[in-house]
């Protein structure tokens, strides 16, 4: 079935010119100056995977330190820097680049376009992100400033005021943190504008908005959310820098500023940010689950509506991160309600995915294994989210290991699992070669086991009163065994990721040739060559339904009759 040729109207099956003749330096140069959406997508992806390994390495030190009570493996100063950098890295240098990695590579292919709407803006956004990342990590060298204190930022990724004021954070580490996020933030804004413009104006003939693949839909909604939420973060960083260097007092509590104000600014960015990060995961599952269940997505309009609904509600829930800061009872009740409401569109999405699998013929190749595990984990994460929305219970759970478990169920159990699914699924398209399925299964099962050993256990540490951000804990608290288990699970995940990295490289060099459409899928990207040639399609494709390739493969029973 992989070799069914797909002569969809106007698509071209070109083998790209091999770059074997050019020198190493020429190849590098062509990547640096490129404005091609596919190359930029891959560069975003490589940036994200690189920092995933860096951020994962940081947490390895954290878990060794916490494996036993009263440990002296690393100092409190180093520990505080490591978790600050771990959080900042994973959110801004892994999660955000991943949004643009997927969007850049996939959206033009899925909507039958030759490139993004603004290719130069695209390249500019990437390099802002990359140099912002470099800037943040340069703090390890330059953060001490003239004071000889500390190096990397150590104020948590929330950077709550007044800890970021110069009285509490001398040196330049906090400046690197604020400015790096300012720079990557501009990159993010450019990328978001580009995605929206591309999806609105570059769709091929016949592709109405309601025929756009769900993947593209989710990333468009995601970009809209980014435009709204990055703005307050950027504003807050500017205010912080004014406080630190030009004598303003927005957050400077010693001069009458309000720590409270930073919290609102941060979380009106920070909560929608969680959805920004998870939407690509939804997007990947919305492609992988139908293809491997051999069925059309169930309830496409409901899925679109639920996505927009989640984005909308997510803008009104930020203060559920602030149940413990002393809001009024009415304020707490309001944010408890708005947070619980998120559960409704989220539930709709889970049910629609399950209904898509219902009555299908499910093939458990590696991408589908990751997506199936994602459904269980996302269900659990949603339910622990409901627990956290219950404000009085939140007074107990907030800031504890229960919260860490909850959001890693999203960030790892939903996002990272789907990123792996997406890589196994689209690797053949991007490289022309299949990833090794046996190694994929090893990767999946080890990572799955490691994930649950670590993060299931963390919930109970939270119940037992262990707060986050602590570099050590007394031996008599009864937290030692569970912490050891958590650390062991972390190592198992580390081994799984190494298997993945090996698989990635070895498959790139000697994987079996994939062909145009190895998974027998239905969206436009599978109609062109693997890897797609420059400009993707020589002439604009024409589509008649949400699954153009289904129509081609099943002329006797095309989709457009039913939509």
């Amino acid at each position, binding site marked *: 079935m992989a070799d069914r040729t797909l002569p969809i109207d106007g698509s071209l099956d070109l083998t790209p010119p091999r770059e074997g003749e050019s020198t190493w330096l020429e190849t590098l140069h062509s990547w640096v100056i490129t404005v091609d959406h596919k190359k930029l997508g891959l560069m975003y992806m490589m940036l994200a995977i690189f920092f995933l390994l860096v951020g994962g390495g940081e947490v390895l030190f954290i878990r060794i330190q916490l494996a036993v009570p009263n440990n002296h493996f690393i100092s*409190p100063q180093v520990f*505080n820097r490591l978790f600050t950098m771990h959080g900042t890295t994973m959110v801004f240098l892994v999660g955000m680049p991943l949004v643009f990695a997927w969007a850049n590579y996939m959206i033009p292919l899925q909507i039958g376009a030759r490139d993004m709407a603004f290719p130069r803006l695209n390249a500019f956004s990437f390099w802002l992100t990359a140099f912002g990342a470099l800037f943040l990590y340069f703090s390890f060298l330059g953060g001490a400033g003239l004071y000889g204190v500390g190096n990397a930022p150590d104020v948590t990724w929330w950077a*709550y005021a*007044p*800890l970021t004021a110069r009285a*509490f954070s001398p040196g330049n580490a906090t400046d690197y943190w604020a400015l790096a996020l300012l720079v990557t933030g501009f990159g993010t804004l450019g990328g978001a504008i580009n995605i929206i413009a591309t999806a609105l104006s570059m769709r091929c003939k016949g592709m109405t908005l309601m025929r756009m693949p769900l993947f593209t839909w989710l990333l468009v909604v995601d970009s809209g959310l980014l435009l709204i939420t990055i703005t307050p973060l950027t504003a807050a960083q500017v205010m912080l820098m004014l406080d630190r260097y030009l004598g303003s007092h927005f957050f400077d509590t010693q001069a009458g500023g*309000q*720590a409270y104000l930073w919290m609102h600014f941060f979380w009106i960015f920070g909560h929608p940010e969680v959805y920004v990060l998870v939407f690509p995961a939804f997007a990947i599952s919305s492609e992988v689950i139908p293809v491997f*269940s*051999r069925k*059309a997505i*169930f309830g496409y*309009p409901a899925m679109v509506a639920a996505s927009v609904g989640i984005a909308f509600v997510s803008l009104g829930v930020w203060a559920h991160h602030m149940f413990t*800061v*002393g809001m009024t*009872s009415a304020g707490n*009740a309001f944010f*408890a*309600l708005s947070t619980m*409401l998120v559960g*409704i569109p989220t*539930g*709709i999405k889970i049910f629609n995915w399950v*209904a898509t*699998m*219902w*009555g*299908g*013929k499910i*093939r*458990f190749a590696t991408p589908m294994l990751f997506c199936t595990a994602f*459904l*269980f984990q996302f269900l*659990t994460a949603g*339910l622990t989210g409901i*627990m956290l*929305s219950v*404000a*009085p*219970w939140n*007074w*107990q*759970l*907030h800031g504890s290991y229960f919260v860490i478990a909850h959001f890693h169920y999203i960030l790892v159990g939903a996002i990272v699992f789907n990123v792996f699914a997406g890589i196994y699924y689209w690797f053949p398209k991007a490289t022309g070669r299949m990833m090794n399925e046996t190694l994929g*299964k090893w990767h999946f099962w080890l990572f799955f086991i490691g994930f*649950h050993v670590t993060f*299931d256990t963390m919930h*109970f540490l939270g*119940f037992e*009163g262990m*707060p986050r*951000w602590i*570099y050590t*804990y*007394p031996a*008599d*608290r*009864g937290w030692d065994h569970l912490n050891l288990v958590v650390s062991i699970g972390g190592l198992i995940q580390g081994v799984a990721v190494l298997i993945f990295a090996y698989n990635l490289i070895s498959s790139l060099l000697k994987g079996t040739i994939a062909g145009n459409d190895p998974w027998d899928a239905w969206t436009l990207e599978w109609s062109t060559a693997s890897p797609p040639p420059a400009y993707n399609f020589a002439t604009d494709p024409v589509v008649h339904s949400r699954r153009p390739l289904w129509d081609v493969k099943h002329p006797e029973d095309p*989709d457009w009759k*039913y939509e």
Partner: protein
Amino acid sequence: MMLPEWLRVGRIAGFVFLLAMFLSSYAFAEGPQSTPSIFAPTSTPAIDIHHLSLFVLEITGAIFVVVASLLTYVIIRFRAGNAEDDREPAQIYGSNQVELAWTVIPVLIVVVLFLTTARVIFAIQDAPMPQAALEVTVIGHQFWWEYRYPKQGLVVANELHVPLSDAKQPTPTHLKLLSADADHSFWVPQLMGKIDLIPNHPNEMWINPLTSGLYVGQCAQFCGVQHANMLLRVYVDTPEQFAAWVNNQAKPGMQDPSVAEGRRVFETEACMNCHTVQGTAATGRFGPDLTHLMSRDTLASGEIPNTRDNLRQWIKSPDSFKPGALMPAMQLSDSQLDQVTTYLETLK
């Protein structure tokens, strides 16, 4: 690929089993624990939260069982069997009735959860303070706790004493939460959930402890390098114990002529810039009040037992216990260290 189903089922069963184990181990535990579990409450707001949490666990647990079973069924039932058979299954595009059903049911669940939650929020936050309530002002410092009892005129540090309350004649303790520097959070799980101490933003909470004993917890909002060792100790005393404690704390510092050299070191070196000993020239306010240092079980905000060796080592080098603590090493000679330690040991 056959999905090892036993693994999935095992995971769910394991999760439920673990949960049951943890809940049961605390359901029968009474009184203060060295593990500050949120499932072993002994004070009114924590008990109310505990009841609410069990209700929420039941609802979310039921949702998990239903949806996870459905998902498991789908995985087993609709797994592709014969690889040769490449006919596609029937294509179903959606159903408005089904969509409506799985929208309305969650809406109803949200209504129930919200009403239950709101009732507890208002009951705890808007409870009037009884006449008999004890008032304490808690001030968070990097990295220790200051407690002021305005009506009793007491200032103490790191170990909070409150009276046992009686269900019939409650004597709850109302805490006013302030911060001297960064954000902190007061969290003693067995007594009450956490509330933050934020500069320029006074907060309040109350506890109504029904079992006496020592309760532990710690700062729950990152406040700087030694956040991890900003431990909390709350002693719930019987009314007699509490009265005796107040009585002792209200006295000025002990004046023992046999330790005059130590006192002179304390008052001439920099100690008195940061520490107070009532009845002497030492009136510093940056560090903990030491008037009744020896009445406390621990040093360094609960980190180490209050012994002579620890006290001497702490004065010599606070970093050896708490790297990054704001108290500087005082560079005293060995004999000065002995003298000042001996002096402090008289402050009962």
